[in-house]
């Protein structure tokens, strides 16, 4: 599904990602861990097409298509979803309205008609219930004044509405309280199936107790310095990053 080949990337000519190769197949869950500033969010932004970040060399193929030639809108419509580490606030734009716009953009792309607003409201209610979100978040403006945890839940709500093929969740767990972490993780697990894939960026092994990764990668200074299975996360938890970053 996703094929990253020797990618070098960054912003304004600063190289942050210094040669990454990664292959993700349908149905897989990959966890990406690594010290602060190692380039995890940059990696996610490159994948989702943030205009401020550019690839310098290398290749990214998504379902065989050259991702680097697509803009953010096209990537989203092709099935890539990014759950932001710091979701932006958009005052004045209603949350439910925004979700409906996003949902309709996909339908239009698929040559379908826009959804009936009442049907959408039902769909939204169902997904919100799954994530334990109160109805009032429909009325609120997009992330406007949301608490850190509420913003993260709202990201997963968008994921639930859009049903992407590949979701990149950037530290969705940070900011969630213990109960919310469980509810959100259960939601993510429900959305996961053999036809889609997940990249989980996280600092905490705890998340991986709920959402079980097939692979764990450690990113340090723009490179993947170690890959392994779930046990790698446990080792990191007990030993810290020095163990992998210096061993390299």
């Amino acid at each position, binding site marked *: 599904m996703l094929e990253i080949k020797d990618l070098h990337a960054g912003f304004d000519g600063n190289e942050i990602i210094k040669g990454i190769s990664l292959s993700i197949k349908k149905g897989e869950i990959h966890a990406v861990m690594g010290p602060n500033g190692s380039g995890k969010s940059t990696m996610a932004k490159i994948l*989702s*097409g*943030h*205009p*401020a970040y550019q690839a310098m060399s290398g290749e990214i193929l998504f379902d065989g298509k050259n991702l680097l030639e697509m*803009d*953010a*809108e096209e*990537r*989203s*419509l092709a099935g890539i*979803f*990014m759950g*932001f580490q710091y*979701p*932006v606030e*958009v*005052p*004045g*734009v*209603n949350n439910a*309205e*925004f979700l409906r*716009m*996003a949902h309709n*953009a*996909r339908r239009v*792309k698929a040559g379908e008609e826009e959804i009936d607003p009442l049907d959408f409201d039902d769909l939204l209610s169902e997904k919100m219930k799954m994530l334990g979100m109160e109805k009032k978040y429909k009325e609120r*403006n997009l992330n406007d004044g949301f608490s850190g945890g509420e913003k993260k839940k709202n990201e997963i709500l*968008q994921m639930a509405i*859009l049903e992407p093929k590949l979701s990149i969740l950037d530290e969705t767990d940070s900011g969630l309280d213990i109960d919310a972490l469980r509810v959100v993780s259960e939601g993510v697990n429900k959305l996961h199936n053999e036809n889609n894939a997940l990249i989980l960026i996280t600092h905490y092994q705890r998340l991986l107790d709920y959402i079980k990764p097939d692979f764990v990668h450690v990113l340090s200074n723009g490179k993947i310095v170690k890959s392994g299975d779930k046990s790698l996360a446990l080792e990191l938890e007990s030993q810290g990053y020095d163990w992998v970053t210096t061993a390299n």
Partner: protein
Amino acid sequence: MSDEQNSVSDILEDNTYKYGFTTDVESETFAKGLNEDVVRAISKKKNEPQFMLDFRLKAFAKWKTMKVPEWPNVHYPPIDFQNISYYSAPKQKKVLNSLDEVDPEVMRTFEKLGIPLDEQKKLANVAVDAVFDSVSVATTHKKKLMEVGIIFCSFSEALQEYPELIEEYIGSVVPVGDNYYAALNSAVFTDGSFVYIPPDTISPMEISTYFRINTEETGQFERTLIICAENSYVSYLEGCTAPQFDTNQLHAAVVELVTLENAEIKYSTVQNWYAGDKETGKGGIYNFVTKRGKCQGDGSKISWTQVETGSAITWKYPSCLLLGDNTTGEFYSVALTNGHMQADTGTKMIHVGKNTRSSIISKGISADYSSNSYRGQVKVGKNATNARNYSQCDSMLVGDKSSAHTFPYIETANSSVQVEHEAATSKISEDQLFYFESRGISRENAIEAVISGFCKEVFKQLPMEFAVEAQKLLTLKLEDSVG
């Protein structure tokens, strides 16, 4: 006296007059320049009653003693008032044979705004076929209005048909010497619109200058007078979203509204004059307008809604004079500036009567290199017991080279008054747009959503189709400016 008359007739009949300029005989345009004779000649040409001439002369005398206002936060080279021709017979706009002849930029706007083909033709002055005969649309509407006794006609026509109404009300809201440009307009205005709503009448439709289908170019100095008698209501629309070009750079209009007891006027404007070259700002229209409403009768209401998106320079403060007790004044405004545009706009709410209420909602959007100023005055007189005002002035910056300014002035002479002022500044950021795009929503729809969210309270005041068009127009103007 006879000397004077000679020169007036010189101007009228002979096309060469003492300043030595000549004009083209065909076009019926006065030679450039302004003096008392020109003012007399305009009045004579239009066959006006004596009171109108006296009004003009008084205004002209006043104007000569006045200076160009320097307080607005706008900058432009001095205007040479002697280099303008103050009268030209209604010029026919060039009739085009098909839409292919229309400027591609204008066509692009039409498409984006979703203006129906027939209307596009009308707006661009393409010869229309029987399907959409604009003139007959206009006449049908006029007839419908006449049936309930509503007068809606050109100012010139009104001067001939209803001189007593005009004499009673003209200058009663905006006195001849109110300000520099109002004085100039009062001296030399050539035409405009007149509306009279008789007592106990709800206008059966929105009245619009749009029905007054012009194949004529809009005058440089327009005059509008609307009188709404006891217990009546009218909603009036001015302008349109389609881009408007004009060979005249200076526009100085005057609009006067009067409401008698329990009457209500809702006046909405969408302005999209040519703003000049986007890079250099050259060639744009200067729009210096005086708009004021007088709530004369108790319990009456005047509400201004404006969406200002064009002109190189806008200088405009639709205001309400709340004379009667329990009167209400409202001002809802969206002013967008981009390129090198400059706008200094806002309102004045003058509370004179008891229990008077006013509210001001102003939304300024500035993009590119433009400058956008809100200037609002709330003045409460000593007899205006229990007067209330609420003002909210928000600015949105797009990019980092534009500027927004707010100048609120509050003056109260009565202690029972409540005045509230709120202001906020926000920004459309690249990160917000990326957020939308990363959810598969196009940049265009993203801008539209953010802008319509920002302007919600104002758009709500506009008639439905107008609101939709206005929203699209703002998006279109901002598309190139964000990011």
